[in-house]
């Protein structure tokens, strides 16, 4: 999947437009760009820097400070495996290991076909359902290592 450069410029500029000449626009713009492209590409950050007159280093500093921003392409589906205490004692490590094995990726990695990104998280706040996995916005509880594959298969 390649994105045309001219296309990027137009789309990023459209996101910047409402914030021109105003203060406090950097984070909303970064969020907008990430929403549009799935991650923050370098040329997008360069355009933001030029248009808002914020040095590239500062844009990069903000983008790397917040966990919500990603500088690398992410998968179409985000798998969040809870590694909190409750999930841990109920075997979330085994689920994590199994997902890594099935998808052949490391923690915080993305599959080559950009299908999945795997993110261990500290707690999803659903300890009663431990062990818990979230795929995109759907929560799956009381999982077993064997139960994870059919769920992954449902996501293309």
């Amino acid at each position, binding site marked *: 999947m390649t994105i045309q450069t001219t296309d990027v410029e137009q789309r990023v500029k459209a996101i910047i437009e409402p914030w021109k000449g105003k203060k406090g626009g950097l984070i909303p713009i970064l969020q907008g760009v990430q929403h549009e492209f799935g991650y923050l590409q*370098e040329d997008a*950050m*360069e355009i933001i*820097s*030029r248009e808002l*007159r914020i*040095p*590239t*280093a*500062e*844009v*990069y*500093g903000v983008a*790397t*400070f917040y966990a919500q921003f990603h*500088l690398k392409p992410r998968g179409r589906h985000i798998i969040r495996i809870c590694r909190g205490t409750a999930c841990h004692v109920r075997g979330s490590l085994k689920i994590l290991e199994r997902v890594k094995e099935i998808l052949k990726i490391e923690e915080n990695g993305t599959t080559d076909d950009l299908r999945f990104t795997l993110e261990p998280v500290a707690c999803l706040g659903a300890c009663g359902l431990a062990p818990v996995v979230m795929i995109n916005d759907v929560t799956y509880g009381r999982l077993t290592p064997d139960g994870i594959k059919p769920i992954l298969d449902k996501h293309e």
Partner: protein
Amino acid sequence: MNNITLTIDGKTCDGVQGDTILEVARRNDVYIPTLCFLEGLTPIGSCRMCVVEVEKNPKMLTACTTPAQDGMVVHTQTEKLREFRRQMLELIFAGRNHFCMYCSQSGDCELQDLAIEHGMDSVRYPYLYAGFDNDATHRDIQMDHNRCILCLRCIRVCAEKVGTHTLDLQKRGWNATIVSDLGRRLGESSTCTTCGACAQVCPTGTITLREFAYRGRRKDCDDVVESVCPLCSIGCRIKAYVRTGSIARVEGTSVTEPDGGQLCKKGRWTLPRSAERERISVPMIREGSHYREASWEEALDLVARNFQKAHGADSDGILVSSLCTDEELSLFVSLFKDGLGMERLDTFDGDVLRGFVKGFEPFRRQGVRPFTAAHNILDSDCIVNLSADPDEEAPVIASYMRVGTLRNGASLLNLSCKTSPFADITDVDAVTATPAQSVALVEGLAELVADLKASGSEAQEEGKISVGELAGKTGIPEETVERIINKLAGSQRPVFVLGGCLSRDPGAVTSAVNLAIASRAIFEDGIGVVPLVVSGNSLGTINTVLAKEPWIGRKKLDFLYVYSTGLVPEDEESLSAISGTKFVVVQCPFWAQPLVNFADVLLPAPAWFERSGHYCTIEGERRRLNVVVPPKGEIRGLASILKDLSAGLGVEPEKPKESPCGNLFASEKPPADARMVSLEEVRN
């Protein structure tokens, strides 16, 4: 301004409303330890070393960021504070690899000094830091992130003083490091200008300059001498560290001045490197294809004989570097111009300066100073670049322009031929195809802006140019011309930076000043124009050696006396004139190629670090150069050489008249009274 009184450690201290506790303490000689604080940069209070206790306030407050209030009772040295500071130091030491014995800056480190001062003999915390890279990708600057304490001084100096904002902080917590541009290593950065300011302000061994490492710690140096950088027309103040008779490093001085104590890549590197260059140490006389050593008597005798012969035939000339001090320039004038009555004196790149002088002349005749101190760029709300390339001509001016635009919110306009040196931050870019078009643009704008500012209601006079005509003439879209006019008309204090190339046409300089007057670019000391004259003391040559009309290369001469500082390359035109002269005397501290090849007699000269004197700078000040390292061996000062030469010639030098800078910095009439002049006056 309201005066306030504080009690700090029992001492009554006076301050002004708005001061921080630290400022009041320092002014009253009360010591408070600091680490991330650096005078001249925005305080951020991140290192917590300057914490103080204020009575009736339960918290410990950072002195560098807390505003002082009348009646405050401050304690800086309580047991609680000392313990807290020691604890902070321990945490900093545990945060990265701060093992002093492996660091090139050991003994030259503010962190180490504070640890010793606070008796920090052990660290109670586990060393949990991650391993970082030692970024050695840059040719001159090394950045070992393992020694970083995240004081952010480098980021602040890069953003607030240099204006490039190459550096910033990436990530957070344990993983936070200094980064350049979009996550680049320093050597891969596209914005870094290699000025080395980050290394100068680094309190630890994180950012170091390869050349100065192991050349001597700052406090081990035998001497630290303040002088002036001769390399461009700003004349930045420098601090040269001397160790065992050689220059160990060169740094910028006072951070409270507008330039913030920064140096550009020229000053930072050229000056110390020149101390390593091969010197001309004794007089030499050409014999066929090589030089032989000679005594001063023999060499000066030969010079005098050839000089006299040529002088009789009116075929002699003197070509002097514009890096000479006022005193040296006066010596040349008093012997050659006033004593011998010679007309042919000039400086290298004299044409550039002559262009400026001619273009400024109509305004000088009005008694108005047609230019202003360079740092006024920082006070401007609209900075206009007129064919200048500040990053090459005078990089600290480029810093002023960047900081003015990015931090002070000024607009940046570029009215140049073919170039746009600040493309990323320029508001309106009017790049013409030919120099003539860009001059025509400035000329036309002066008329249009004058009309607009004079009074909106007055009908346009006949014969005046219209926006459409101007756009057609210059190839700049009408809309762009309109935008420029609106920016200039709407700004309170615009400032115009004139590139050296503009002065080829004195009319262009006059138009630029006209445009400045039209847009009311009025500063206290003169009209808001900053001319990028060539080098250190170019302004000083105006009243001394600068010829009224160019003579170099106009006629084949029999004798030419060339005085060069060997620091900047000579211009092509002068070199070809030198090579065509029958007998050439070159006086130069270094074996400066290709200049020395043309010499019949070579005379040693003191290098920049062996001379003292004064420069007239475009910062609007007469600045003093000091001897950093006394000259050794056969090297003699210019005064004693010219004295012997004048005896050989049988001439008595005239006493130097007034100082070369005499009338340069004063404006007889208020700059606001300046009126525009017609270009016919200049171009005839």
